[in-house]
């Protein structure tokens, strides 16, 4: 029985272009308080455009209705559990939205004089201080705009460091369980990628690693806990191995929600790592971004941190814009400052103890789900789970049901699906991360739904294969979309 949702109406809505009527306008500018200027005279005839073809022309109420209606077609954390593994979809506190919009912060210009920027600089300094303590690292840069951007920043620092040692190396090692951004980043930073195999415990195979680390190895990029939600128990040994062979250890910190307050990468031998503030520190995903991917480093990498660097001198905060040894700038200005505000607000709200409790609850919730489902879904790795648990669809495939089908059917039960088919080392993966902000009630509903789908996979496989059945849009044809991509609206050709 589906307990969590019932169908109700949602308004249909055309594309905004289809709603336009010539001459409509949703916003009025104040009258000019200076003489008007003829654009063609000011810029030259050649530089003035014709009107923007087919651009929207609608009223304010049209705008409100259009986007309100669209919004109702979305699932969201505010509506319910969003157990996307690796994404840490936790509740986004509303006070964080409030403080990020305070005029003195939201309207601060990145070039305004330093004496008028003390607040904005202090926010960054405070956040860096807390993130250093949380990670056990020596310094932090807040510039990167997202996790992948942080990876690039980190890998470039490794490159700069090695080069400063006169030691140019050419490969980066990446476990086969890694997130796609890891190899993509290494390639963008000019490295060759070599894959490292996982063992039967779902961890890096230490022997395989030992065999492959050599004098061409710049770094190993490890995610810990890794993408099957398992803590890499050899992490310290791995760090020693790399260091003994002149290589660096990069940690993808996307899964820090499993560690905050309990264990610190800086204590494992990690040289550089990124954090995803939009995961662990609750800044809202907003349908795909913006995020922030601060990078934390050990002291030997500090000279290579990107500029600008925010520092405290006496009572004043300063921004250092130049450095000889820095990798340079990775982004204009100061990173996604508005996101940093939200993350700092989250940290202040929790405090040290609150963060630690949240971590424990996240791990507890994942293990509760594991326990509730391990008899009906295949658990490829029996190692203890941290903040997420990964099953495979192997018990269901005999009826032709794949992880993607189970995911779509889960929608009918009122949940956003888990992460589908990732990590790649698990064939047909179901990657489930509840986070700490889900209540027992919601977890029980989820377990109940997943068990019910397993049952349907057994007894009514077609129901599952053709799901979802309760959404305004039935299963979307992704193949067709890719075949002849239509990525822009064009006016109907007049007949």
């Amino acid at each position, binding site marked *: 029985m589906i307990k969590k949702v019932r169908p109700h109406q949602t308004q249909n809505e055309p594309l905004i272009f289809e709603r336009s009527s010539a001459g409509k306008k949703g916003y009025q500018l104040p009258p000019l308080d200076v003489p008007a200027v003829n*654009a063609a005279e000011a810029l030259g005839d050649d530089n003035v455009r014709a009107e923007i073809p087919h651009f929207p022309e609608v009223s304010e109420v049209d705008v409100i209705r259009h986007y309100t209606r669209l919004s109702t077609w979305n699932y969201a954390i505010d509506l319910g559990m969003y157990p996307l593994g690796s*994404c840490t979809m936790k509740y986004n506190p509303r006070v964080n939205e409030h403080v990020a919009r305070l005029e003195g912060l939201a309207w601060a210009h990145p070039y305004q004089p330093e004496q008028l920027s003390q607040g904005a600089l202090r926010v960054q300094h405070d956040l860096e201080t807390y993130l250093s303590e949380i990670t056990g690292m020596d310094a932090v840069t807040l510039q990167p705009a997202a996790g992948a951007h942080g990876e690039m920043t980190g890998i470039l620092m490794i490159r700069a460091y090695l080069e400063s040692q006169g030691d140019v190396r050419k490969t980066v090692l990446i476990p086969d369980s890694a997130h796609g951004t890891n190899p993509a980043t290494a390639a963008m930073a000019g490295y060759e990628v070599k894959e490292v195999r996982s063992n039967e415990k779902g961890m890096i195979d230490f022997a395989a690693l030992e065999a492959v680390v050599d004098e061409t190895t710049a770094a190993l990029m490890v995610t810990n806990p890794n993408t099957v939600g398992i803590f890499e128990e050899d992490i310290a040994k791995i760090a020693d191995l790399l260091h003994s062979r002149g290589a660096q250890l990069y940690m993808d910190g996307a899964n820090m929600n499993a560690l905050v307050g309990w264990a610190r990468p800086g204590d494992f031998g990690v040289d550089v790592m990124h954090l995803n503030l939009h995961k662990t520190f609750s800044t809202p995903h907003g349908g795909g971004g913006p995020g922030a991917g601060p990078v934390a480093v050990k002291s030997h990498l500090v000279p290579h941190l990107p500029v600008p660097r925010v520092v405290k001198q006496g009572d004043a905060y300063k921004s250092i814009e130049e450095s000889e040894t820095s990798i340079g700038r990775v982004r204009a200005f100061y990173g996604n400052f508005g996101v940093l505000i939200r993350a700092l607000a989250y940290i202040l709200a929790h405090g040290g103890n609150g963060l630690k409790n949240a971590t*424990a609850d996240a791990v507890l919730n994942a293990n509760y789900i594991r326990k509730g489902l391990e008899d009906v879904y295949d658990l490829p790795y029996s190692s203890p789970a941290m903040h997420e648990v990964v099953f495979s669809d192997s018990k269901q495939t005999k009826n032709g049901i794949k992880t993607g089908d189970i995911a779509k059917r889960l929608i009918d039960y009122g949940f956003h699906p888990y992460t589908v088919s990732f990590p790649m080392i698990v064939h047909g993966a179901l990657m489930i991360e509840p986070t700490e902000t889900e209540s027992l009630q919601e977890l029980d509903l989820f377990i109940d739904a997943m068990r019910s789908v397993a049952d349907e996979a057994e007894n009514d496989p077609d129901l599952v294969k053709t799901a979802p059945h309760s959404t305004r849009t039935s299963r979307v044809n992704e193949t067709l979309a890719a075949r002849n*991509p239509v990525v822009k609206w064009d006016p109907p050709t007049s007949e």
Partner: protein
Amino acid sequence: MLEALGHSAPEDLFSHLPADLLLNRPLDMPDGQSEYEIIDYFQARAAEGAADYASFLGAGSYSHFRPVVIDSLVTRGEFLTSYTPYQAEISQGVLTAIFEFQTMVAQLTGMDVANASMYDGSTATPEAAMMAMRITRRDKLLVAGSLHPEYNAVLDTYLRHLGSPRQQVAYQPETGQLDLEDLESQLNGQTAALIIQSPNFFGIIEQIDEIAERVHRHGALLIVMFTESVALGITKPPAAADIVAGELQSFAHPPSFGGPSCGVLATKRKYIRQMPGRLAGETVDEDGRRAFCLTLSTREQHIRRAKATSNICTNQALVALMATIYMTIFGKQGLRELAEQNIAKARYLEGALRGRGARIEFTGPYFNEFVVRPAVGTAAEVNRRALENKVVGGFELTGALDGAMLVCATEMNRREEMDRFAESFSGGAA
């Protein structure tokens, strides 16, 4: 719940970690604070800012009116707290909005296709450069000397390690536009692309068609970058470019100390498979109804891994939505009026500064920013005086333009503020 799992304390959940890796002390941080205390902390930080100053800063980050409805809509939980729309059936809202965003960016820039956003303009630019290198299979880049210096620095960080030679193309010291002769002299069969900014860092509109013609003659691509999207409401779109990279912050978000903002990347249809970033595409559902989904993901890191067109994953979706709403609410006429008001305000400021004997550095056509040199003293001195009158002046330039400043006037700058700023140009040396 702990008991249900056979545990007696939260510590049990971490007991499988090597004991020496566990943190055996509390984090060295204050206790958790109440909502009220948090608001208090940030209000104190906000009060340390420049909220009550007039400002003439632009230089890549702009202050424009921001319709209230933007936040009314983007703070709806359904937008704010949803993830990347991988599950199309319960993400049609976000997907439709992205499709609209892509369409509007294409309409605005004169390109065929645009992606769902990049981090910002400064990172969209190297992504465009790498894309051009993939398309042309060439590796030499020409970069206009009038590019935003921070963008130039980011380009350097991204490309330094890929062994691609980059050379600067000079700007004409008189007009502030790209020096076409210098361009000709540097273009050759190894050139992957020329990267220009228009309006450029000095606010000057470039001769895009002429430049494109020369670049294309050598089989290279033209990348046009912009930081001030308001200009696109009135200036000719860079339709002659092959790739357009840019920044929609002006349409989307207050300056926010430089971020978050909204990078864009648009191009010709034929290059779509070389684009970085997410794309929403139109399709149908099982019942044949129009629907949208993310598409061409074989370009992306989660499928193609080391061979992806970029490592980008999380982008700036919510800021892109803000820009989409902004473009919608201003619309066809509104964006034009807005651009015209910016032109008028900047011309008034120009007049006011000229009235104080200041010299306008370049003769090329400018949009809402221009470089000005005080009659006496330096930009720094002028700015110091301005601050005393609660005015944040222009961006102080260095190098060949030492002593001059880049000033920006938008529809938000009142006449009285401009007059007040102009006064600072006529004081004696500070």
